[in-house]
């Protein structure tokens, strides 16, 4: 509904939704006579969604299912999935705020970089950051890799690189972290919130 600005619009809108004549014609002034065109044509905004996917609430481990409504690549609403036997369409305050989390004004969109000893952030392209991180990982690993202990026991690890994170991540993400960091680079400091 375009907001009525011009005088002509206002007059036309007023006449179209004028209740007095309808009231005099016998319509109930508390119901039909008072209903405006906008109210008559009102529809839930979910019907504008072009994609509806099923997601799992990112918050706690109960694992409630959610329906994600998106329009033109943007999420327009998230609410409980009535098909799930776990939550039967209900959500707790955090689950109900999932839409608010995805659209939080504090979300990051650009990579930020803080150079050593610097006192401020700088914005950097994603590709540059990935290359720089790969370089740093290789440098630190090469400088600190230990193949065998002094007594000859094979350890094949580096104690200089650590990784924290995974309880909020998908199984696929955790799998690749353990595979690359553990089996690939020989890191042992790999932990997540399971112990927090």
């Amino acid at each position: 509904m375009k907001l009525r600005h011009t005088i002509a619009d206002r007059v036309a809108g007023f006449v179209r939704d004028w209740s007095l004549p309808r009231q005099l014609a016998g319509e109930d002034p508390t119901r039909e006579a008072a209903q405006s065109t906008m109210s008559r044509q009102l529809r839930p905004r979910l019907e504008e969604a072009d994609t509806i996917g099923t997601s799992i609430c990112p918050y706690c481990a109960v694992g409630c299912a959610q329906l994600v409504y998106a329009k033109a690549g943007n999420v327009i609403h998230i609410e409980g999935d009535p098909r799930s036997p776990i939550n039967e369409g209900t959500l707790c305050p955090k689950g109900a705020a999932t839409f608010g989390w995805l659209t939080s004004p504090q979300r990051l969109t650009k990579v930020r970089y803080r150079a050593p000893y610097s006192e401020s952030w700088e914005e950097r392209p994603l590709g540059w950051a990935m290359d720089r991180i790969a370089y740093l990982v290789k440098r630190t690993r090469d400088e600190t890799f230990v193949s065998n202990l002094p007594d000859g026991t094979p350890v094949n690890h580096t104690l200089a690189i650590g990784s924290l994170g995974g309880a909020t991540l998908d199984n696929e993400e955790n799998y690749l972290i353990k595979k690359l960091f553990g089996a690939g680079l020989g890191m042992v400091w790999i932990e997540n919130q399971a112990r927090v």
Partner: protein
Amino acid sequence: MTVHPRVLDYPQSFLPGVIPDEAELTAGQRVGAGRSYGFFTDTTLCIGCKACEVACKEWNALPADDLGLRGTSYDNTGDLSATTWRHVHFIEHIAENGGRATTMPPFQSNWLMMSDVCKHCSPAPCLEACPTGAIFRTEFDTVVVQQDICNGCGYCVPACPFGVVDVSLEDGKAHKCTLCYDRLKGGLEPACAKSCPTDSIQFGELGELHDRAHQRVEVLHAKGVENAYLYGAPGTPGATGGLQQLNAFFLLTAPPETYNLPRAPSRPAERVGPSLAAGLATIAGLAFASLAMFAAGRAD
């Protein structure tokens, strides 16, 4: 863990569209115009999680009103307002005669919680006060403020016997819970009722809700919760003084004032007649008296 049979018709992970009549899956009934709908809020099931407050704000895109820590138990929301259409009350009655309760009467806790909302009264004082017809009774017998009509006169604010509706100073219009009027049009259950984890907030047709509520009170009385009572159903506290019933009614276990609810609210419109009559009578009397005085003045 029981799911509605129709759920089996939607096995895909990406759904083709909004599930038609989703309210049937979540509240067990289809929403149709011409019938009257409301909420039955059973406070003995409320766990104070505020899912209703969040679901309401998310659906209606209401801004957060950062009020800070209020120190009133876990209630930092304070009251219903133009930007808060659901408000969970927290009342602590833990200590009894010095000690601390450990074994509690069933279904009634020492920490009362209740999700407050617009009562969608019928008749509705805000609707009866509204001079522009912005507030009207929908085809679902709910009360809605039409944002394209309201000019912010603010008469509904003092009219409401429960202090629900409020005028927002940002957009200059009155706002309150619409019982998800747009969702009902799409066959969806209101966001708060759908989200409520323990079904403390139950959406449904009023007749059915009243039966369910009365039955629930009997069950509770049998289980020893003697002071469980309905508030807002026909013939109960809250539906008094010309207010036949509150479409959003409650099951409470403490005096209404504890939840900031009036015991016997009254319908303001009933005061219009006597007030006008008394006013007109007085001024008419004075008018004729002045005529008489003028006439007397002419005589001498």
